């Protein structure tokens, strides 16, 4: 019983679902990159 991957009615839900999971993940990656940048930043002179 083969079935196409998606149809028109599913597309809206699909986009919403992927946005729902992407937002927190991208926020987490953004914050992490901020910390990673510190690794390559020379410490400020005392």
């Amino acid at each position: 019983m083969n079935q196409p991957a998606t149809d028109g009615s599913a597309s809206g839900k699909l986009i919403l679902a992927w946005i729902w999971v992407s937002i927190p993940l991208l926020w987490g990656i953004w914050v992490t990159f901020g910390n990673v940048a510190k690794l390559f930043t020379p410490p400020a002179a005392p």
Partner: protein
Amino acid sequence: MAAFLDRSHSIAGPGFSRWLVPPAALCIHLCIGQVYAFSVFNKPLAQLLCAAQSACPPATAKVISTIPGDWSITDLGWIFSLAIVFLGLSAAVFGRWVERVGPRMAMFAAAVLFGAGLIVAGFGTAIHNLPIVFLGYGVIGGSGLGIGYISPVSTLIKWFPDRPGLATGTAIMGFGGGALIGAPLAVLLMKHYSSPTSNGVAATMVTMGIIYFLYMMVGALIVRLPAVGWAPAGYVAPTESRGLITSGNVLVGDAIKTPQFWLIWAVLFLNVTAGIGVLGQASLMIQEMFGVVAAAAAGFVGLLSLFNMVGRIFWASSSDALGRKRTYMIFFALGAVLYAFVPSLGHAHALVLFILAYAIILSMYGGGFATVPAYLRDMFGTVQVGAIHGVLLTAWSAAGVAGPVLVNYIRQYQIDHGVAKADAYSVTMYIMAGLLVVGFICNWLITPVAQRYFVKSGTAEAAA
């Protein structure tokens, strides 16, 4: 409610996109992956009493609290360990139940347990009762972790028979990503709730319990099972076994009798042991070996978390083309070489190469988790792969205890015997390389499962 959660009500109708199932799985894994970020609570939990009296030492002080009765970091370490142990135990015990009731009920149970676990831990924190925190996050939350971890795996494998590595890799990538979200979210909330007499950790746990419950419920709402006999367009299921990829099915009770299951158990155990111990020591290690400041060390840990996450999707999807056995051969061979070189890179003060080596090692640590469901599917078929995966996760629990103990013990032994702190990691790295060589041998010994363990097609359908 019970009817909605029932397996029969979560069968997909015509036109349902299978690409909705990975985000459903991610809703669960992005939340439960918070366990990797639990250490962000350790210091605030160790300062509850001194915070209440506005008498905590400054951040630069060597002691965390001078108030008698404040919890020690050693005691608090048990919260994470308990959660990982209960993750493995609940995945093993409830694996067959998850297969029977379907992903929606399992995801709902995981959301309730994980959310309630955080709320109970928040309550235990508010009344300063450590056993309640152990019960909340370690036992209740840990059980939610185990059920949540396995709940989408077999569903994804059924939806993506053509790309099982990619599908399970996407979900398990979410577990790696959960730490990237959980740590800054906790910091943000603790800042919001803090007052002159509280560091806000109890309220933060309760809030996170509610947020995570609601977020996980979205996954339970959108997940669907494929109808019996469904296959993606253009996909033809193999009718004969090819190499390690079987066309038959082994039930969980029989799978655990095969040497192949225990070899894969050892493969996962050794891969995780080598990674988890070092992950816990990463911050301290780079500070002692290279003299970097704590903020930069946090950046190193963040980078490792990123590679841990990206490695899950990269290696698991690559394994669809490379083959699972070959993928693990790469993990163990490359991992052993990199671990063996790390001490030399430390002595040479080659910071960039050192970071790069660890980034690759951690990508393979994550890749090991994400590739193993597809490995099990190849060896034992799809019918009870979720339950088999559940039992296999006891390897993670064992490694969660063995890895940190091994690394901490070896390091302390060397320091006690006069080895400089910066050099104390060398022996540990060589031992890790040795563990990976053993893992290489275990993986190399894996052969197709004997025919006597496979069930007849009628029995397989009944067990599905």
